[in-house]
């Protein structure tokens, strides 16, 4: 059975097993209809021109894991941040793992989507925010909405700074030969609130996994959210990440996406600026090799005056890897005095690597400052020779140059432990020991 049919058939069963009190029953129905009509995107859709989902559709993914699997802490210890204390929301095969997690309700709410759907004290938040930022028309987001059951639910109240960063980790245990999960995250920062989140998906075996995740972030007035996405999954993992961010006036939201692993990764990152004096920061580093494919589709929609956005994506593509960058900026007529910057720089290490880069600027206001720049090139051979002439071996020299290339994205990572962790991952990817600490 093709994946689409399987999903539609499973929805009927899923729906029957839902709580009668389920708060979004109608929404689920509407959403599955959207998926039914549109199906999986094909290469004929402009937004999916360079990223094919054909293989995924032919894989027989299990949609609900057979049994709850226990994962050994020792196995997964290395995926957590240890140098600092954090809150943790850990899911195994889409199911909450209480022994690996650390939730809280003291002053802030770091808990589960399933709890938020059921418990009356969260009803007003679900009513106010659920699915209000996500696209109702996008087929895969709608698919996620129809099946949404579990994920992270984070609420930081007015003028509260989250005392610890929050880790959201989704593990796939490999108990199924092929597994599809659809986490749904809701992250709300009320007026003046601040938080930092680190998100990652990790498969623990070589079994195929497909993750279709939707994350909605809401930054109320004067709030601040820093989100770090670490995408370093195994080579049998496919990820479709749909992140929607609704910002109100004076808020600052930054998203850093580090794409190093996975077979197929598609990042749909959408920012909606609904207010004045908003700052949106989108940064990414992609370092991939053989047969990997990473696609970044970003959207920043400037709707009101005096806002800014900064996009900086760096990509290094080795062997026969392929990459896509599509950066869309919309500046409404009302959005005067907008400052929007977009930069995409790429290095192709070998002839077989490919990158498709497309900046899209739609500007309807006339008193704005918008720029976009894109470069595609190779490592500077002269610079490499210079390093070699100073005794640095070629492999380390190349790594150093690539590191320098990605540096200004790494510089803006505010959490030192995350920076250190990313450094380590990059060093490992490039096969070197970085002989200095960054």
């Amino acid at each position, binding site marked *: 059975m093709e994946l689409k049919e399987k999903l539609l058939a499973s929805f009927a069963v899923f729906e029957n097993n839902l709580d009668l009190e389920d708060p979004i029953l109608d929404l689920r129905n509407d959403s599955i209809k959207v998926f039914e009509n549109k199906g999986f995107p094909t290469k004929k859709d402009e937004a999916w021109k360079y990223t094919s989902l054909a293989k995924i559709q032919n894989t027989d993914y299990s949609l609900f894991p057979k049994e709850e699997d226990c994962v050994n802490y020792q196995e997964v210890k290395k995926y957590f941040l240890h140098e600092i204390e954090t809150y943790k929301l850990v899911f195994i095969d889409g199911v909450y793992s209480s022994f690996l997690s650390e939730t809280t309700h003291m002053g802030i709410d770091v808990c589960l989507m399933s709890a938020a759907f059921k418990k009356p004290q969260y009803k007003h938040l679900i009513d106010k925010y659920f699915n209000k930022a996500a696209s109702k028309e996008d087929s895969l987001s709608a698919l996620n909405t129809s099946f949404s059951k579990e994920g992270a639910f984070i609420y930081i109240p007015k*003028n509260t*700074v989250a005392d610890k960063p929050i880790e959201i980790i989704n593990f796939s245990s490999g108990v199924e030969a092929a597994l599809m999960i659809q986490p749904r995250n809701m992250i709300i920062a009320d*007026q*003046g609130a*601040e938080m930092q989140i680190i998100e990652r998906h990790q498969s623990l075996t070589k079994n195929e996994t497909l993750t279709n995740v939707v994350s909605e972030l809401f930054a109320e*007035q*004067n709030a*601040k959210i820093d989100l770090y996405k670490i995408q370093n999954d195994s080579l049998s993992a496919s990820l479709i990440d749909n992140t929607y961010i609704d910002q109100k*006036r*004076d*808020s*600052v939201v930054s998203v850093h996406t580090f794409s190093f692993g996975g077979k197929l990764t598609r990042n749909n990152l959408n920012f909606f600026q609904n207010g004045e*004096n*908003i*700052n949106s920061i989108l940064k990414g580093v992609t370092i991939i090799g053989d047969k990997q494919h990473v696609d970044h589709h970003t959207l920043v929609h400037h709707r009101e005056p*005096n806002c800014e956005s900064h996009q900086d994506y760096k990509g290094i593509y080795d062997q026969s890897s392929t990459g896509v960058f599509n950066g869309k900026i919309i500046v409404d007529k009302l959005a005067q*005095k907008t400052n929007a910057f977009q930069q995409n720089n790429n290095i192709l290490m070998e002839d077989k690597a490919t990158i498709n880069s497309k900046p899209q600027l739609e500007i309807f206001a006339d008193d704005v400052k918008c720029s976009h720049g894109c470069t595609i090139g190779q490592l500077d051979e002269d610079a490499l020779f210079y390093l070699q002439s100073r005794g640095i071996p070629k492999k380390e020299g190349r790594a150093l140059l690539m590191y320098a290339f990605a540096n200004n994205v790494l510089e803006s990572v505010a959490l030192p432990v995350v920076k250190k962790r990313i450094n380590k991952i990059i060093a490992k990817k490039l096969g070197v020991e970085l002989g200095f600490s960054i």
Partner: protein
Amino acid sequence: MLKIENLHARVEDKEILKGINLEIKPGEVHAIMGPNGAGKSTLSSVIAGHEDFEVTDGSVFLDGENIDELDPEERAHKGIFLSFQYPVEIPGVSVTNFIKAAINANRKAKGLEDMPANEMLKLIKEKSSMLEIDRKFLSRSLNEGFSGGEKKRNEIFQMAMLEPKVAILDETDSGLDIDALRIVANGVNKLKSKDNAVLVITHYQRLLDYIVPDFVHVLYNGKIVKSGTKELALELEEKGYDWIKQEAAQ
């Protein structure tokens, strides 16, 4: 120190200020809050003398002198300082060069010579360390590529250098995270004295925990509709502006 009498002002054909009365005495901190569109930024622009705004009635007095006919730079020479909500970028002009030009322009207006270079340097060092601004920052082009927090810190740095009589802070806290907010508020508090006054325009009560006001006024529909102490700000934060709008309608 600053006295505003029955001030009416309009921009293009729209009347925004419809009779503002406010008196700020030396040593006082006043706060103005209000919903969007109430006229808060208009008020600060009018006091600073922006030519896009036409005063149709009433007057503004500084130390008893009517300043209605004075140009913005003349008002600055007399001691009015506006910390802008959206500080402008001036590429090619460094933070240092700009403040030097401002200080010397002010001295010239008082009949003084340019400040000697070593004195200027000392002053810059002193004020920049108070606001935790490092030397590299000083040679950057004014506001170009600055983060929100850096822009606002730079505004207060200029305030520290120019030592105005009346400082108007227009939404200095919007978009600042808690760490940046503390540095800015600290700076303002250090500059407060019995010989100057501060008018804080803010959207969020939180700033007033750090810069504690003697009086809080609510601006709605171009008029000050309510005045109180800092408790009023807390009440507004809790209840929003609807009750004010209802009261005003009655």
